[in-house]
């Protein structure tokens, strides 16, 4: 187990390093000269050179990369052009909000999935099964931004129940979280329903029935534990999809998280900020994937045995 753990952590570190280097090199090569973009239009060559020295772009790309990596290791991701503040500070303000939103959305989606998916598998010809199919089909085809806009139209403009955007407390989380949850529920319901109906046919479930355990206990305790394994994988794999949805929802609801910051940075051609956000988020993803992998072996002892 320990050997496996070390190997996985090492692998994750290499992936993070690879992403960092790729993002840095690609942005540097394609972005053009930031000094020319930032300097006044009729600036003299001297002034532009001064800007270059400030940005550090007068050095070769290898030197820049080394300097950037050395800074990144110590938590310094450079300075934002637009805000004139360390990128790390900006990211650290926005990140907790994004994570809160993603967490709420995931929690909401999982609760709905577990109830709906289990019921649909348990009673294949019931209204629950139909509901699961309808939600899975429609939810998959409705874009996050559209459901978001519709909800703003209905709950904020018509009914005036919830804020339409911004960040003014917990109530600001409700609409974006629901919008994101609606987008990720379909895949989860599909997976849980099919794995649940497979698990419910297993012999140990029949044994549990024979022992006279209640159906609720069997479904939500015995069957769910095994049926949730594929679900866990999907959550781990689709975590990029989840954050993609969160970013879109942030823009629609003007929620000041990472996604909004990234879009502001994009429109301002603020490369250090885009770069910093990309690297930080990608690293989070790698870590989440690692954690899910480890959680996987916690739930299923067979995997633990295999890997040791």
């Amino acid at each position, binding site marked *: 187990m320990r050997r496996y753990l070390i190997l996985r952590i090492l*692998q994750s570190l290499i*992936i993070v390093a*690879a*992403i960092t280097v790729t*993002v840095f090199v*690609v*942005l540097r090569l*394609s*972005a053009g000269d930031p000094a020319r973009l930032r300097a006044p239009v009729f600036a003299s060559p001297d002034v532009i050179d001064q800007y270059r020295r400030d940005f550090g772009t007068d050095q070769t790309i290898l030197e820049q990369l080394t300097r950037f990596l050395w800074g990144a290791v110590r938590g310094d991701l450079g300075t934002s052009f637009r805000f004139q503040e360390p990128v790390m500070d900006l990211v650290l303000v926005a990140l907790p909000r994004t994570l809160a939103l993603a967490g709420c959305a995931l929690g909401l989606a999982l609760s709905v999935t577990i109830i709906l998916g289990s019921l649909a598998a348990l009673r294949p010809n019931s209204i629950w099964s139909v509901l699961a199919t309808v939600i899975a*089909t*429609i939810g*998959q*085809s*409705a*874009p*996050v*931004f*559209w459901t978001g*806009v*519709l909800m*703003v*139209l209905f709950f904020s*403009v018509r009914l005036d129940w919830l804020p339409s955007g911004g960040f003014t407390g917990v109530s600001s989380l409700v609409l974006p979280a629901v919008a994101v949850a609606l987008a990720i529920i379909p895949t989860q319901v599909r997976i849980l329903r099919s794995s649940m109906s497979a698990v419910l046919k297993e012999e140990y479930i029949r044994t549990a029935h024979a022992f006279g355990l209640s159906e609720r206990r069997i479904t939500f305790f015995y069957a769910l534990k095994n049926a949730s394994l594929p679900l866990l994988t999907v959550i781990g*794999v*689709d*975590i*990029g*999809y989840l*954050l*993609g949805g969160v*970013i*879109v929802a942030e*823009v629609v609801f003007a929620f000041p998280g990472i*996604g909004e910051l*990234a*879009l502001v*940075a*994009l*429109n301002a*051609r603020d*490369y250090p900020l*885009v*770069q910093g*956000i*990309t690297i930080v*988020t*990608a690293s989070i*993803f*790698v870590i*989440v*994937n690692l954690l899910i992998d480890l959680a996987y072996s916690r739930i299923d002892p067979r995997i633990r045995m295999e890997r040791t």
Partner: protein
Amino acid sequence: MNETMLDTGCGPRPARRTGYLRRHEIGPGLALGGVLVLAIVLITLAAPFLAPADPYAPNLMSVRQPPSAEYLFGTDAVGRDLLSRILYGAQISLIVAGLGMLGSLTFGTLMGMLRGIGPRWVGPIVDRMIDIQLAFPYVLLAIAITSAVRPSVPVLIVLMVLSGWAGAARVVRAIALQESGKDYVKAAQIIGASRLRIAVFHVFPSVWPSLAVLAAMQTAAMIVFESTLSFLGMGVQPPTPSWGGIMLEGKNYITTSWWLTLLPGLAIMLTSLSLVLIGDGLDLRAKRLRQRAAQT
């Protein structure tokens, strides 16, 4: 009548399937999705003939008119006919999603096959590439890329391929790995068939049904993705009409002019919904056909 009598004479038999749809296991969802997609494609191709007005011609005398007999879908902020813009927007959406799907499936299949059948040393490399690609939030990838390159239709297609290939590769990899352990592949190896030959002639036929499902699902996802990017201002640039772009322009008037956001959204949803119906239907069909093959 005659047939049923013959049947009873031959002992118990599975119920004879009647009708074309039944025989080919085409369920109601698949049929409905197929008809809808066909209709949408035809309407899109015929957009120049169907559109009641020029999608680029502003008319400042009729700005943000609600849907009426004159303007079936209403008009936008500069008085352009919304129905015409949605019709022309469909062309961009379908082209980007269609080409993106083709690219993503081609690349994804190649990588998945390489992992499943190819030399052993490429395995971990392809696996890590898929992991990285799937872990990377696609919208952020789009932001990073469009911050470097000006968004255009080819850039959008590349983004579609980048966002989709790993999903396809994962499915193909699973099938290829499963098949490569089977006896018929081993037999082919023993008689000296090359890896390429095994991949193309022996394993690919098993991948094919899943590829059809993936094609429908990915096109649906890409229509949503393209409109999302356009809605965020990273996709098709104005004044070219695109479904997401129309909604972006309409977002500012959401309280007064609901049709500017509701109708293009419905177009997106209807299109991807019918594609999802096809995907689900094909999936179900493959399962039923397998069951039937197992019975006989």
